[in-house]
């Protein structure tokens, strides 16, 4: 599954700012860290501001800061600001639903979408920050230990 650029940029910005809600960062700071277009990010930050998730201060020392509730705000909440989520975007063309195969395919695609929506709805920004701190991708390459002998001998 792929997210649109604006959505990804928004998630990067929210995660970066929510990591320390007292810190103010400029759009350029965030854009530089993630290697993304500062111009594009500025538009995204404006949308996040309109959604009440970030606040901006002008002038020296100004910048953006996170003003949402990281324990309540989910990936779904952020994504839906920028693009339709799953089922809405995958609404089949009317012509596809005129055939049995089209209906069957529609059911399977909806099943995938329902899982995607449940996943996005269940992961808060706070949980994402914990995931980032754990860095599971670093241990993913290490070989897994075998299951404990005590349990396997039951």
């Amino acid at each position, binding site marked *: 599954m792929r997210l649109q650029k604006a959505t990804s940029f928004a998630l990067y910005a929210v995660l970066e700012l929510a990591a320390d809600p007292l810190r103010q960062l400029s759009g350029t700071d965030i854009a530089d860290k993630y290697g993304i277009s500062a111009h594009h990010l500025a538009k995204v930050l404006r949308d996040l501001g309109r959604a009440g998730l970030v606040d901006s201060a002008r002038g020296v020392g100004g910048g953006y800061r996170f003003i949402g*509730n990281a*324990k309540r705000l989910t990936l779904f909440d952020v994504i839906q600001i920028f693009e339709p989520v799953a089922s809405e975007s995958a609404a089949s063309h009317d012509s596809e639903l005129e055939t049995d195969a089209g209906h069957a395919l529609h059911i399977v695609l909806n099943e995938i979408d329902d899982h995607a929506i*449940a996943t996005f709805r269940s992961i808060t920004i706070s949980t994402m920050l914990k995931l980032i701190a754990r860095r599971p991708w670093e241990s993913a390459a290490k070989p897994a230990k075998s*299951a*404990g002998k*005590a*349990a*396997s001998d039951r």
Partner: protein
Amino acid sequence: MTSAAAPERSSKLRIRPAVSRDLPALIALDEEVTGIAKRTYWKETFQLYGARRRVPRFFLVAESDGTIEGFIVGEVRAWEFGEPPCGWIFAVQVRPGTRLTGTGTLLFGALCDAFRRAGVQKVRTMMLRGNNLVLSFFRSQGMMAGPFIELETTLD
């Protein structure tokens, strides 16, 4: 998305195995949360998971000043579809008024400790994908999608 003041966790909160005198409070708490009284189910579950512990089954409660604030139930399941033994959680409840105080986290941690002592290295669970409250809780504990896909069919 608005923030609300979280209730404070009682310093007297402790996690311990469920005992038979907890049953009425457990049944009442579950009914308070789910809206369905399941007396027979919980009595049978206690018999299997709380009273007899010859196999790695765990029924833990969070108690504060004599009040049951939450519970968690799990067991070690082995070799289902060839998978090595793993810890399996199939029930967790925290009293609505004391949520967001870390009670669920303490229960989850205690159960994971019990699973570790039983020699397993994976913990799994399954719930309705619409149960965002519990799904979010397990996500917050670091759980992610595992290798299984849940399937079902309707019997005619």
